[in-house]
């Protein structure tokens, strides 16, 4: 992967992957930083990445792992340096429905949330979700089924509360 190919890959994938990671972790700023870091690592390992069948999946997985790692550090009282020196992105308030969806996703078990995001937001078929998560397709189907049911229930609860 040369510079031009990498730049094209970055331009084409950044927003999409950031959206997917955001759905997984529920924090837009954090998602953007983790995806940027994942792309930097992708460039650092570009020779090996050339052999990767799904480079976007590699970046997404790496970004998610970085996010989990940073979350653990943050919860243990340490603040990543790049977060400390960068200005937070000023975002317009999201809609109520969006807030409810993100909140509902965060309440799901991690495995179900990942499966839902990869299948319904990243638009990956079940086979590819199974490959990316390293589990059998049947497990993914079960997680999707239960995740959808749980999400519907959580959104219904939220709607009930907002109408009360």
């Amino acid at each position, binding site marked *: 992967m040369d510079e031009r190919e*990498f730049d094209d890959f970055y331009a084409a994938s950044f927003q999409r992957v950031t959206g997917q990671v955001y759905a997984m972790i529920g924090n837009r700023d954090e998602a953007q930083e983790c995806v940027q870091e994942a792309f930097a690592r992708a*460039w650092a390992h570009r020779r090996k990445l050339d052999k990767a069948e799904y480079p976007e999946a590699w970046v997404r997985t790496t970004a998610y792992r970085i996010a989990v790692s940073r979350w*653990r550090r943050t919860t243990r009282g340490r603040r990543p340096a790049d977060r400390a020196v960068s200005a937070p992105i000023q975002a317009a308030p999201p809609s109520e429905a969006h807030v409810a*969806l993100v909140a*509902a996703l965060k309440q799901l078990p991690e495995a179900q949330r990942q499966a839902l995001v990869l299948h319904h937001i990243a638009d990956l078929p079940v086979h590819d979700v199974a490959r990316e998560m390293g589990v*059998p397709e049947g497990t993914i189907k*079960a*997680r999707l089924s239960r995740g959808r049911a749980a999400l519907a229930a959580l959104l219904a609860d939220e*709607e009930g509360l907002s109408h009360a």
Partner: protein
Amino acid sequence: MPDPIDELENFSIPGPPMNPMPAAEVRRRGDRIRRRNNALATVGGIAAVAVIATPFAVFAGGQSSPDDVDPAPAPQWSTTVPDSFDIAALPEGSTYSFEVVDGSTVDDVTLCGAPAFSTASNDPAGPATDTVGATWTELESSGTADRTLAVYADGATAQTALDGFRQAVLDCGQDRTGGVSTVNDVVDRAVPGAEDSFVYTNQVKNGALLFDMTAYEVARVGNALYVANSHTSAGGDQAMDTVDLLIEHSAPVLDQMCVFSIEGCDPARPDASEGVDEPTGLTGAIPDSFPLEKGLPTDPQGGVGLEGPSHDLDLAVYNLENNLRACGVAATGLPKAIDTLNAGFRSPAAAVLRQLRTFDSVDEAQAYAEGVMAPFASCTEDPEGGVTKIYEVTPEEAGDHAASAMMRVEVDGEPGVGYQLVQVVRVGQAVLQTLVVNDGEQLDQTPEDLRRMYLENSQTVIDEMN
């Protein structure tokens, strides 16, 4: 009720368009990461080094050192690594593997500008007489690990190498050479099976932030020195997790290092000579025909269904490494089994893995059974975000010793879906370990009912162990 699928498929990022870092800047950062990794690999900052000094203590010959005051025959040390030594050995169920290389994977470790350890001639203690190495890299996480086993002319030289390495770490708490500020900390860990050892971490320090942590394990047995390291881009309090993992994963290498000790690998065991450890029940090799699958579910429900019994079952799908942890901590120093037979069951919603192990003695079997439970016993709650894993260890009435570790999930204080159960039952020198993982179903039975149910399902196997 809103359709969650519509909600998901119309998911978008709120707020103004993102303004990502220019691609050229991302590449520059990638180049910096690459340069840093290469530099660390060169000086041994990234690599895991396992250095074993090779002493094969043989008491024939009576070649005494001229400096020896004691006229007793001095041991002759083997100065090469036996071909059978497996420097890449990992605990059962590990999901990665090392690549064996000829020679040390860490040529030298320099601290505060001074050589601290090397298998070459610039080592303060002198060159090793033989080395083997192994290396592993995980592309996705930038994680690396390396091992070096170095053999020295004798045990005293190996000890001098270890002492010099340890003192260099102690003398170099903060290292500002090379334009990067790093800190070195000796941590309070002993390496099981080593005659002497120390463990330390090396981390990049930027203000209050610690990151790019490399944990080092240095252990001596006889005239062999094992140096292993593991690198992660994280740092700070996570260091302890990485240290424990490093020691745990090195255990199969330490188990082999007795070949370099004065006593060798078959010292007379007091308990054996006194005949207090009579074999009882199942011992030694376990036949493939052992009915380990008895009592497991048979309806695959669209999944894989029954697997085994087999000595070669693919254990990766059961994610043992993760499922036997609690609060990020895994059991360490578990005795090595003589033999292990596996049987499993997988449906879309649940997985059950039974592992039957035999040990050299009742004491080792008991230590294993208790050791597996130890992480769960020391971790009652493990919160992550709004999800809290709650662990409870309960003694059971089965075999000579039995216990269950139940993990259930709470989401914001309410019962969540999924549970995990680990059960061990020891009968004599054999231990039956059952792992149940259910990540899709509501816990509609009490933990007591589930524990009892799985124990009853295992009763046929327990009876066969007697």
